[in-house]
């Protein structure tokens, strides 16, 4: 067992863990933070994305011991990092644009989108699609997710944002 100390969603935690324990396992099984989900377990799908010291990582691809001394933010603590309401603006935008269907990819999508906008605050639609390429959604076809990220970046409203990508003329979409 190895001793680890870290800050998760603003709270200091310390535990003895097996070196083989994955960060996502630690978050879910030790801390009960089941808002972060395991999708593919092969580091492809991005559903388990959290922030580690301010940048997005796939928590199924990090050992808990590697996060020793670090600060972790999960979907459960995201709203608290932004003062003003129960939801982070990205969460609001996903709700507003209905950027989900089954919702399984949503925690990872939102965490990656927040990290992405931090590095690129006013992205083009193409840049958004590339920025979230490490997150797979098997329901939506991504259109509403891209709209949500556009809305959260202060570009366009929830109906017209990204409308051109699905072949709907802007006038029609906003009418």
């Amino acid at each position, binding site marked *: 067992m*190895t001793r680890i100390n870290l800050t998760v969603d603003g709270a200091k935690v310390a535990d003895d863990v*097996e070196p083989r324990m994955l960060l996502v396992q630690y978050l879910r099984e030790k801390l009960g933070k089941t808002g972060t989900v395991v999708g593919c377990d*092969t580091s*492809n799908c991005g559903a388990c994305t959290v922030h580690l010291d301010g940048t997005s990582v796939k928590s199924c691809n990090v050992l808990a011991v590697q996060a020793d001394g670090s600060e972790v933010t999960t979907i459960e603590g995201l709203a608290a990092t932004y003062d003003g309401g129960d939801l982070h603006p990205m969460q609001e935008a996903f709700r507003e644009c209905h950027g989900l269907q089954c919702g399984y990819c949503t925690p990872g999508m939102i965490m990656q989108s927040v990290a992405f906008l931090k590095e690129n605050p006013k992205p083009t639609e193409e840049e958004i699609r590339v920025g979230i*390429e*490490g997150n797979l959604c098997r329901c939506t076809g991504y259109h509403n997710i891209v709209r949500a990220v556009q809305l959260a970046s202060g570009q366009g409203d929830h109906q017209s944002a990204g409308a051109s990508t699905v072949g709907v003329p802007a006038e029609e979409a906003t009418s």
Partner: protein
Amino acid sequence: MIPTQFDYLAPTTVEEALSALATHGDDAKILAGGQSLLPVLRMRLNAPEMVIDLGRIESLRGIRDDGDAIVIGAMTPHSVVGKDPLVKEHALLIHKAVEHLADEQIRHRGTFGGALAHADPAGDLGAPALALDASFVIAGPGGTRTVPAAEFFVDLFETAIGEDELLTEVRVPKHTGWGAHYEKFVRVAHQWPIVAVAATVKGSAGSLEDVKIGLTNMGSTPLRAKATEDALRGGGDLATAAQLADQDTNPPSDLNGEASYRRHLAKVLTRRAVTAASGG
């Protein structure tokens, strides 16, 4: 799946890491960013008794100017390499290759040296390193030695790094002002390239002064498209020269494509990469 049990060490200096390697030898595995190692451990394709994590060794991170070369610390994350102004100015080809390597989350964790030491023939950094004539600084019990890229890649997942050695940094000769392009052919987003071509060019289309071309996934190691380079240096036209890109390669056949298809891709992608690199 969960990896099999292992012990864990996180040394804070290269010397400590080397002594841990000397003690545990064959039973140990080096952990850099872990973006290739962790999936391997989870699938239980490897079951080391000891994992030595280099993540706490600060001296292995960072990029510096060293006269006629830039030096990239082995533990520098891809995302840092991708944004670094020195890399962009003096080794544009690496900048371009890193930009589309895996995905953003992986680039935050994965490291420049880790990816090169892993030596996956489909990895995106081997061909650019080879094309830029990079050299690899390897630390061992007897001190450090420097290995040129042409000798670094030995075989599938095999490099010149010995069992008791560590890659500490990569020296990239400055290619200031050279155009560059990494042309990657994938089936779906953030996948390993089926074939990719790394091209860097001095001069512009029509007045090419020099050209260097690396091939990804056209054999068990990264390769140079030497015949194409020579033809272009001799003033040959690109369409004809690109037809030589698969000479002396030995591409694999797998679910993503037959060897003959990869040979075809190498020619097409070489033409595209050189065209883009020379601003065409």
